[in-house]
């Protein structure tokens, strides 16, 4: 061993809090990243799925003979073949939940357009597609039902014949004394508010490559997922594969937004086909399939009632929430509306709540977690209701919010729905937003605009949300996260995170944290994720948890490895006490030091092993959070409506978000901007529309309005910072905040613009035609 004992000369710059560009970007923007579609294995076959063109139908017969006869077609399988394969899993544990059997291929009935009926496997994808066209299915078409309220009406067609009322579950959440609140009320306002179906539309559609090795009884599955480990556990169960012989790889994942927080038929089916034919098999989802069969988000019809005093004090809230579940339960389908209920109180200090959720089957694709997952619906509801109440009372919408905010001295604040808000100063953040936009000046401008006949609106949303999912008791499969920090013998550092970032940028931010803690150059650090054979178990990426839970796990792993470095360093320096900092271990008495890289190398060579220590320099930490975190913020949008055409112009957008501490503000900006784009998408443009037969009318980009860059306003973004006490980083989470805060600000702004016409509410999306009808007195 040749230790130099020379103190390191260059002090490394601290990186946490710096706007570092993403290290993952070069491969992404030069087209060299490996997505599932890029995985090509020797002798790989291709699967194309035959799907139902009907919303509801009995399958009379399936003739696969012509498809099988097509040269290049290797196999065709139908529902009759998939004996012994488990059904698509649902992690919900609601009492009394009705669970339809969700087979990976339809058995004798189809329940939605796109329902998989058969799979054609061929030597190339084109032949498989031609083969799929040759599969002849005879259907006996039944009446579908696609509107959840129609599904609940007496005499509606039953989605599942065994449950003629189409009710999958009812869920109640009561807090405080709602009757007393309404008895005490001086004013009650009511409103039906919908939150339309949205199609997540990740840039990369789903895709699977399955590689079964019969001799080893082993499966390697590449799939575009946010939850590699959970997906492996669940798929292993469905397929009867031993989990230790099942390697699941989430290669580059081109966005998920919750739509890949799931386990899908096609993942199991592709794996099963590979097992059947003993060859690698690839299935790639087309964009049309992505619209049709990848989960949708939202899908609420909400009936709100709010009780208040004349001075604006909110006393209580009643909600009946009709959730359009679709035809089946995907992984978390029934759970999502219960998250809405939890967040109903928003930032407001009232203790009385009564909520009823009616989970309703329809002949549509299942709804499930989509960016925000329950919180956008809740926030939109409460933020609209507060505005409606303000209008009823003739109060300023800012004033009514100040009146009702939870105060800083009330934290931790137990809500009427059983949550425990961690920290915050809502009034301060809101005031900052009001000052930034010059709220009082704006109201004067608005008065002038109105006098001149112009329709100008100012919309406020003060949102709160629940992040960092979450304590294990509140999460179906565990809510902890894991991290491994590993010095290689050369002194390079590998971090393995149990989260599964797919655009969030943790390869950068986790490296920043690691660099600061260990005093190692960031270039010497790699962050790996998404491969069950490399990474210890992990829960994955969703619910704005990567930093607040995964980052915290990493932080603790780093602390532990620092302790180990110190022990080894002390042994090497033959010192009793050492100090660790800036990548060196120092004996303060002698001034002698040794670098962390040297210590790591020595720990592997086992030259000096301090008593009670093991060789090597690897630490793995699993960390369980004690609570969720609760970010919050204020978004204000100024808009102007063209009465003649119904066009909406966004004049200003100010966002002040409090997400606690930030590892990399550039990544935070990206999350907020993208989130706001999706939230504005819901407010203004996007809608998953089904016709009565179950056809998705907005089933492609020609009709489904994805927000475009040119449609986005400039977002004036700033922050306040209330560190979360829940984790050592003080981080709250930002993955979904923009989506949650933006939508009601937009809608409130347009309703405010139209309020001189007597408008109190408009359901989303605020299409120009809807606005035009209102401005032209054609209220439909």
């Amino acid at each position, binding site marked *: 061993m040749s230790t130099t004992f020379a103190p390191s000369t260059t002090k490394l710059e601290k990186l946490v809090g710096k706007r570092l560009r993403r290290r993952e970007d070069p491969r992404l923007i030069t087209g060299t990243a490996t997505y599932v579609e890029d995985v090509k294995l020797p002798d790989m076959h291709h699967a194309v799925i035959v799907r139902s063109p009907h919303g509801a139908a009995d399958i009379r017969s399936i003739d696969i003979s012509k498809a099988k006869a097509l040269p290049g077609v290797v196999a065709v399988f139908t529902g009759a073949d998939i004996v012994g394969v488990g059904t698509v899993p649902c992690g919900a544990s609601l009492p009394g939940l009705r669970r339809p059997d969700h087979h990976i291929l339809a058995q004798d009935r189809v329940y939605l357009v796109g329902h998989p009926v058969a799979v054609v496997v061929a030597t190339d994808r084109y032949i498989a597609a031609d083969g799929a066209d040759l599969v002849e299915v005879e259907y006996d078409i039944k009446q579908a039902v696609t509107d959840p309220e129609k599904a609940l009406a007496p005499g509606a067609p039953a989605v599942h014949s065994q449950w003629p009322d189409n009710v999958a579950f009812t869920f109640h959440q009561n807090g405080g004394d709602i009757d007393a609140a309404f008895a005490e009320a001086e004013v009650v306002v009511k409103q039906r508010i919908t939150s339309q179906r949205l199609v997540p539309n990740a840039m990369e559609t789903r895709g699977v490559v399955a590689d079964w090795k019969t001799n080893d009884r082993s499966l390697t599955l590449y799939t575009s997922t946010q939850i590699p480990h959970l997906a492996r556990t669940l798929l292993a169960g469905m397929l009867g594969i031993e989990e230790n012989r099942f390697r699941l790889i989430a290669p580059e994942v081109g966005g998920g937004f919750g739509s890949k927080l799931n386990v899908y038929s096609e993942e199991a089916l592709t794996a099963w086909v590979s097992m059947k034919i003993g060859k690698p098999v690839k299935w790639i989802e*087309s964009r*049309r399939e992505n619209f049709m069969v990848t989960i949708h988000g939202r899908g609420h019809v909400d009936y709100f009632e709010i009780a208040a005093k004349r001075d604006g004090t909110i006393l209580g809230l009643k909600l009946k929430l009709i959730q359009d579940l679709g035809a089946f339960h995907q992984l978390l389908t029934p759970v999502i509306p219960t998250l809405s209920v939890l967040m109903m109180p928003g930032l407001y200090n009232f203790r009385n709540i009564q909520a009823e959720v009616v989970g309703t089957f329809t002949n549509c694709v299942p709804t499930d977690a989509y960016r925000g997952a329950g919180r956008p619906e809740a926030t939109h509801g409460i933020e609209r209701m507060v505005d409606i109440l303000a209008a009823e009372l003739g109060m300023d919408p800012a004033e009514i919010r100040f009146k009702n905010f939870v105060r800083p001295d009330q934290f931790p604040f137990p809500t009427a729905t059983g949550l425990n808000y961690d920290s915050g100063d809502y009034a301060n953040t809101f005031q900052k937003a009001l000052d930034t936009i010059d709220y009082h000046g704006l109201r004067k401008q608005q008065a002038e605009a109105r006098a001149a006949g112009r329709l100008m609106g100012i919309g406020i949303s003060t949102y709160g949300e629940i992040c960092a999912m979450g304590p294990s008791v509140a999460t179906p499969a565990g809510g902890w996260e894991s991290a491994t920090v590993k010095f290689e013998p050369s002194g390079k550092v590998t971090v393995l995170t149990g989260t599964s970032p797919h655009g969030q940028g943790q390869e950068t931010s986790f490296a920043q944290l690691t660099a600061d803690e260990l005093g190692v150059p960031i270039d010497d650090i790699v962050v790996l994720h998404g491969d069950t054979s490399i990474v210890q178990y992990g829960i994955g990426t969703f619910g704005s948890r990567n930093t607040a839970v995964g980052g915290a796990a990493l932080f603790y792993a780093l602390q532990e490895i620092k302790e180990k470095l110190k022990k080894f360093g002390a042994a090497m320096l033959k010192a009793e006490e050492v100090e660790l900092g800036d990548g060196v271990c120092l004996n303060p008495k002698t001034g002698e030091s040794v670098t962390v890289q040297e210590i790591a190398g020595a720990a592997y060579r086992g030259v000096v092993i301090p008593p009670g220590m093991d060789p090597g320099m690897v630490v793995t930490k699993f960390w369980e959070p004690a609570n969720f975190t609760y970010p919050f913020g204020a978004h204000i949008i100024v808009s102007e409506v063209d009465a003649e055409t119904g066009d909406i112009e966004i004049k200003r957008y100010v966002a002040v978000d409090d997400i606690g501490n930030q590892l990399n503000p550039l990544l935070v900006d990206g999350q907020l901007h993208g989130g706001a784009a999706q939230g504005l998408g819901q407010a203004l443009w996007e809608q998953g529309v089904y016709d009565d037969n179950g056809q998705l*009318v907005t089933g492609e*980009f*020609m009709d489904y309005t*994805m927000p475009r860059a040119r449609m986005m306003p400039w977002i004036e973004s700033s922050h306040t910072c209330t560190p979360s006490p829940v984790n050592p980083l003080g981080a709250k989470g930002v993955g979904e905040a923009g989506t949650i805060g933006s939508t009601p600000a937009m809608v409130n702004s347009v309703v405010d613009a139209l309020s001189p016409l007597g408008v109190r509410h408009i359901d989303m999306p605020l299409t120009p035609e809807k606005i035009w009808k209102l401005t032209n007195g054609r209220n439909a």
Partner: protein
Amino acid sequence: MIANPFEYSTPATLAEALGLIADGAKPLSGGMSLIPMMKLRLASPEHLVDIARLPELNYIREENGELHIGAAVTHYDVESAPLLCGKCPLLAETAGHIGDIQVRNRGTLGGSVAHADPAADYPAALQALEAKIVLRSAAGERVVTAAEFFIDTFTTALEPGEIVTEVVVPVEPGLTGTSYQKCLQPASGFAIVGVAARVRRDGANFGAVQVGITGLTGTSYRATAVEQALVGKPATDETIRAAAAHAADGVEANSDLHASADYRTSLAVSYTTRALHSALSRSA
């Protein structure tokens, strides 16, 4: 999103291409409409003839006070060619409204015209410009006006075996003001309505006016009632408002998810007003 199998030919000459088309092959130009339909298997031609590379269809030239544009000229070239920008700004402006830059770099004038999408942009301008459309088959050539060419949704005067080879538009007289105003369908970017206007002044009054409208109904049309309500009248806001109210006269408006018939009609009036205002302000 995988097309059925098909054959693909790249003939070197127009004559060769017309021979293949006479035998039933389908012309492929920019592919911006045809390929998406093939990928969705809504169209399954067995044989494609690529005409976009034919030099005989790639030109823009001025002859006898008219501008001749080959069918394979891309939207981007229409938008940016100095000859067109200078001498037929309405067509260049309209081309700039089509799709996005990728689509404009591949899609062609002839392809758009032949496809006759009811929400396409060019037809409005071609109606207002009283353009001529040159059609050619192996048997010979004929020329029709835009008004004769556009018959209905995806339906034109093209006979089997015939293709569009050229579009002819006038060199815009210097004093004419022109404008194209489009209400975008927000998802597709096509026109919910698009209005092309050409305005000449006659002292303080409107002189000759042409208005072409696309998107409102099954096919593009000349809004003659609007034109008649303007000619000879004072060039004022009131005249424009009153005239634009006739934008949808005699027309049955389309209705879809993005705009009901009533709303579309109202938009046609609004965008006609805008186009006339803008054209008037550009006239000398």
